[in-house]
């Protein structure tokens, strides 16, 4: 007997009453097919960019995604700088690196919080977001805003870091590390989470290569790629840090990669602040000649790719943006088919989908089948954790 039900899933901020994001075809408890339809967040940024000048398109690109708010501008300005062969001053490169790593810190903590919420660990959710606040404060000190930084410009950065702020930044980072140790202990040493997350949603290395997966999603499957090391930009080739990889490819491995990357980010920021050279922060470019350029950056979710074509005028002829989630999302076909429906939310959350980057998900809802709302799916996931907790604590 196979009774197939179609289940749509939505993310943590459901868009509408009939949540339509993924269409999962479920046979009993197991997922047998998955289909996605995206487009709810499509704002036509690539076309808009053609009517703005190069300076304005950086602000446009910053609002592609709130969380990767420095990765998209960095990749965009690098593409434009490549067309014109502009050399960016050293100090600006270090400031770009600091902004990137601060963004990675706040994004990974955000993810830890959300993953905690989906699993029913609301304390982890509150901790993750509470300890994110000092990082937003540092961001405000350095760039002037908590989220959309407005830091990057063609040829350098817009704002400098004052010497008086550096002790403040270092203090906040020192305070952050013991808290991250606490969150790490709560997440990585918990036997219930081990049981809940290990072996779930496995993405094999071959599948990661075939789908061109990126970022922590790829690194957790043993596919060792990191734009900061492979295509060095900003000041990354002058610093020492480790690329974190795991081999299992399951949700637990993805969590481990992200949490360990937090420590690496703190180390990179400290090195940058230590070695921040003097000098100007802006190369003051005048013209962009005709040509094409490619810019890449490592966002918290993976590689961001920008391609800009210029015809010598002040606006791009073509501006192609590719966010990392665009390549990571299709891996859902590999990781979710065969898994249970109560694990679907956490498997989806494990690739850290940036909906706005990828332009949102909808699924066509078949009205004659059973429908579960995203609240139902999150509730299923949280209930499964509770059941596992009971089982494990009875044994121990």
């Amino acid at each position: 007997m196979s009774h197939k039900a179609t289940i749509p899933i939505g993310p943590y901020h459901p868009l509408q009453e009939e949540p339509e994001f993924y269409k999962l075809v479920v046979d009993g408890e197991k997922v047998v097919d998955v289909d996605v339809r995206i487009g709810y967040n499509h704002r036509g940024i690539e076309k808009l960019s053609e009517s703005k000048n190069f300076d304005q398109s950086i602000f446009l690109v910053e609002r592609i995604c709130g969380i990767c708010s420095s990765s998209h501008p960095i990749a965009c300005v690098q593409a434009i700088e490549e067309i014109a062969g502009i050399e960016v001053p050293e100090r600006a490169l270090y400031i770009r690196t600091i902004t990137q790593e601060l963004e990675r810190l706040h994004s990974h903590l955000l993810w830890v919080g959300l993953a905690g919420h989906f699993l029913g660990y609301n304390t982890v959710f509150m901790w993750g977001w509470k300890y994110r606040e000092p990082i937003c404060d540092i961001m405000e000190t350095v760039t002037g805003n908590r989220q959309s930084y407005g830091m990057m410009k063609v040829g350098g950065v817009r704002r400098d870091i004052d010497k008086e702020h550096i002790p403040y930044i270092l203090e906040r980072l020192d305070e952050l590390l013991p808290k991250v140790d606490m969150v790490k202990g709560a997440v990585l040493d918990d036997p219930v989470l081990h049981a809940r997350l290990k072996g779930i949603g496995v993405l094999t290395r071959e599948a990661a290569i075939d789908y061109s997966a990126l970022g922590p999603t790829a690194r957790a499957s043993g596919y060792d790629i990191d734009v900061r090391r492979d295509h060095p930009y900003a000041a990354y080739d002058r610093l020492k840090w480790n690329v974190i990889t795991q081999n299992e490819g399951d949700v637990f491995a993805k969590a481990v990669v992200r949490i360990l990357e937090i420590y690496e980010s703190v180390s990179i920021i400290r090195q940058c602040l230590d070695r921040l050279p003097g000098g100007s922060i802006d190369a003051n470019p005048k013209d962009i000649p005709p040509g094409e350029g490619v810019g890449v950056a490592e966002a918290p979710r993976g590689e961001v790719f920008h391609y800009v074509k210029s015809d010598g005028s002040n606006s791009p002829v073509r501006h192609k943006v590719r966010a990392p989630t665009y390549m990571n999302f299709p891996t859902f076909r590999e990781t979710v088919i065969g898994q249970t429906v109560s694990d679907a939310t956490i498997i989806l959350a494990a690739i850290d989908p940036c909906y706005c980057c990828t332009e949102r998900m909808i699924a066509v809802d078949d009205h004659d089948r059973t429908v579960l709302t995203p609240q139902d799916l999150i509730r299923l996931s949280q209930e499964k954790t509770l059941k596992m907790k009971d089982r494990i604590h009875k044994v121990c």
Partner: protein
Amino acid sequence: MKIDEAVKKIKDRFGNKVLKVYKHSEKRAYVDIDHDDIVPVMTYVFKDLSFRFNIASGVDTFEGIEILYHFAHDPSGIVISIRVLLKDKNDPHIDTVTTVTKSAWWIEREIHELFGVEFNGNKDLRPLLLSDDWPKGVYPLRKDFVPPKRDSRKT
């Protein structure tokens, strides 16, 4: 693998099917080929040379619709872009590359709906980004499409 070496390997393998090579720097090169050769070239670059498929981008130019397939070789830090030109703007066709790599699944749907390019052999060219009620035959990223300038408060 340095960029010169990679480009030379492609040239040696495909001979005069490589129409033009432009080396922008030690890390970027653009290789022009005929659109009929995209599947063998992509198979060679993706499978034999182990490049990672980054993305494909389309541009509407005076000569036709140009599609660039961008590949990255991470151990060497180089990006090679393979350019094809589809001269017939009324009916642009090219073979699908989803047989070579699954990562081209979404981008072909996107280029199809935004530029109107047909991918021969791809049965799944449903709209990806645009709404279902978007008028057929209107391709937003073509240069002759001008978004209506409306100040809705005036109407």
